[in-house]
């Protein structure tokens, strides 16, 4: 009999708890956050969450949203697509209609398909082109510029410097490989005279990148374009410089992060990265940075401003519409109104991409990212 009870207890624990969990009084306006809080890419997800928290704290100080304080409901997806779908369904089942997320492109796509067009979703870090281009998700927006902006800038720089032999390496992830392929296509279309001497995927989290360094040296490339995050790039750059390889390194916004310089140290010097135009000069941004310092005792992460800007634009639109459920009206406001945010003025185009967010090219000089020319 005892075992029967035990079994029933496990069964009940397993299944029946979630059925009653979502009933809650709506005394707050709730916004969902989906993204990586655990796993290898947790640091990206956290910078998104901190951005959202900053925007929420600011809004709450002014009386919240729709007259009620804002509450964040967060779900981790570890940047794994099927986790993202589960997290998305969990958020959707809590009757949330406003979502900030997800962190990675692959996770974002599976989450979108799980939300099934029942939420307004703004991502501040999913850059893959087809997310907005394929038109399958009418309520998806993003504050980060798309992947196709970056290869164009990188190619311009390469042409300008007169490099002839290019190596393209990527981390095989959703984000990195899409960037690498995009650059490859750009070169084939616009600059067929350039030679791609190496196009390779690199396994992340490896114990050694020396074989990649050997391949680079053998290819005699003058410039190496990296598609991926700074975590792998910094290791690769350290080992390249260690072995006396002076190839110029260009990276995407995954490299444009102070963390890259911290991690790679002296090896980072001279590396280039495309990144969002510097916006930390405005008063709003300065206040945000100061706030971040007091809250988390560190510099804001890569996507902090993107996320805070996304949240502020969303709050403004919702405030104007007057409810959180009329998705079409909120969409219209997001596309028609320009909102002043910490990341600058934010408005979205018909596809859902942010208008006006610009990438520029940075170079690492004396341990700082400095805009090129």
């Amino acid at each position, binding site marked *: 009999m005892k075992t029967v009870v035990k079994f029933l207890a496990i069964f009940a624990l397993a*299944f029946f*708890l979630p*059925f009653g969990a979502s009933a809650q009084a709506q005394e707050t306006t709730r916004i969902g956050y989906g993204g990586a809080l*655990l796993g290898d890419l947790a640091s990206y997800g956290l910078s998104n969450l901190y951005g959202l928290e900053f925007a929420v704290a600011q809004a709450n100080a002014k009386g919240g949203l729709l007259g009620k304080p804002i509450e964040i409901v967060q779900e981790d997806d570890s940047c*794994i697509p099927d986790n993202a779908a589960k997290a998305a369904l969990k958020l959707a*089942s809590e009757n949330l209609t406003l979502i900030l997320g997800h962190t990675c492109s*692959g996770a974002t*796509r*599976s989450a979108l398909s799980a939300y099934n067009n029942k939420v307004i979703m703004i991502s501040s870090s999913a850059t893959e082109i087809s997310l907005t281009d394929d038109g399958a998700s009418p309520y998806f927006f993003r504050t980060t510029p798309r992947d196709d902006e970056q290869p164009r800038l990188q190619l311009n720089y390469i042409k300008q410097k007169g490099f002839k032999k290019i190596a393209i390496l990527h981390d095989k992830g959703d984000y990195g490989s899409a960037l690498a392929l995009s650059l490859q296509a750009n070169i084939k279309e616009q600059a067929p005279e350039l030679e791609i001497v190496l196009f390779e995927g690199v396994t992340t989290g490896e114990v050694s990148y020396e074989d990649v360094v050997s391949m680079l040296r053998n290819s005699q490339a003058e410039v190496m374009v990296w598609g991926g995050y700074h975590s792998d790039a910094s290791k690769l750059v350290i080992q390249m410089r260690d072995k006396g390889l002076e190839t110029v390194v260009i990276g995407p916004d995954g490299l444009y992060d102070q963390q890259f310089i*911290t991690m790679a140290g002296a090896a980072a010097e001279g590396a280039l990265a495309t990144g969002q135009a510097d916006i930390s000069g405005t008063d709003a941004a300065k206040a945000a940075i100061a706030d971040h310092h007091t809250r988390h005792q560190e510099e804001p992460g890569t996507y902090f401003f993107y996320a805070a800007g996304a949240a502020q634009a969303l709050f403004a639109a919702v405030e104007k519409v007057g409810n959180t459920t009329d998705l079409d009206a909120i969409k219209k406001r997001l596309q028609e109104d320009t909102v002043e945010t910490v990341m600058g003025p934010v408005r979205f185009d018909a596809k859902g991409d942010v208008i006006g967010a610009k990438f520029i090219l940075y170079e690492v000089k004396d341990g700082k990212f400095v805009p090129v020319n």
Partner: protein
Amino acid sequence: MSSNFTASNIGRLVWSEIKPALLATFWICLLAFPLMTLSINPTNQTYSFSMARIPYLAGGTFALSIIWRFFLKRRSFQVITKAVHQSEGLPEDLTKGPKPTWLTVVMGSKYRRQGLIVLLALMVVLPFISNPYSVNVLITCLIYVTLGLGLNVVVGVSGLLNLGYIAFYAIGAYTYALLNHYFGLSFWICLPLGGLTATLMGLLLGFPVIRLSGDYLAIVTLSFGEITRLVLNNLNITNGPRGISYIKPPGFFGLDLNGAPKDFLVNYLGVDPGMDVFKVFIYFIILALVILTIVCVFRLENSRLGRAWLAMREDEVACQAMGINRTRAKLTAFALGSTWAGLAGVVFASQITFINPASFSFLGSILILSIVVLGGMGSIPGVILGAIVITALPEQLRFFSQYRMLLFGALMVLMMVFRPEGLIKSTRVVHMHTLKNGNGNKTKLEALTGAPPERASSPPAASQSPGQANSQANGQANGLANGLAKPPQGPTGESS
């Protein structure tokens, strides 16, 4: 006897319990000292020191240590009692035959059929009384039940350690995704195709590993799983790491369930299901698949082939000597085990509508293996319970947010320490015990396992040697004597 309860004795007793707990607390605090007190500021490579977390750690460790020791003592007491009974030639529970568990009570009783019908009815009603999220968890859970039962054929029944099982799941999922993406084939055509492809791949894996056993087999299957994932990650046709999205959910005889039927429900019947109709449909598909799997696996296990697998698990050489074709047994075990993963993969692809190779990492193989071992190797209800625990537990632990995986890991250790033979023991082994001990409980157990009595002469009985009862008396845990797996072969000598 009253002198046993003097104050000083009680004090000594309490102290004898508290002292080790205090020692453990001190030790754990010492261990955690650098990692929990020092934190690094990465920007300027400085560190700061704070003892704030240590008191919580100490308190938690102390309480856990007391509980841990209590349960460990209780367990070892049970083990010793059992061992004493065994060494005296008595069955585990004195002369009453095997201890009746809830399972034997339910399954052996005349209410078995009614019980199953009630359970089935409950499962049918479940999606209608729950929210979309729970339906999704249920689907995932049932998918993992299918996976667990499939792997159980390979690991639990045939004793072949397979660390690359997730590959067959991936093959099933990609079969559907690719055929749907490029040729627009429907779910119902792809379901058998996915199963078939996985079976063929299982055969393909089976050929090179015929000579291998034990951990060498494990590493080859692990390699196979990794190769599959890496190839999927690098091929252009699979879209590489970016995966395949917008996979069509299954239709009902060519009907798009999210279109007309939902409109019909909402507009004409006034019922808003509150979720996608196709999700409920997938739930019923996977439920049917699970029932099919249970029936097939059950029949397989008790077939001639199943007995050959069991014999192979117990001893490969002996099973060959008994005239069993080992090559055929191994190949069929791999092939038939993989089929279920392929079928589950097709359902998974249709449920999640997006797949990429990252969903099929080595961790997935490990989780499925955990289901089988945690539930109880070779036991069908055990595997089902294991799947529920492994898939639903992290969902329940979401409440603990970032401590979720920490707790999950700790619970896995605890469950294994306190139930090394799994949550539900394989009943077949009890059968052999009983026969060996000459107790006439055959009829009852036959009803339970559906096994014919002539299996008494099968080789597994040979592995129950008295020597193991001896080693048990020395205080070892009880897994070996239950014959769950062959005792580990002594590895080859060091370097000599």
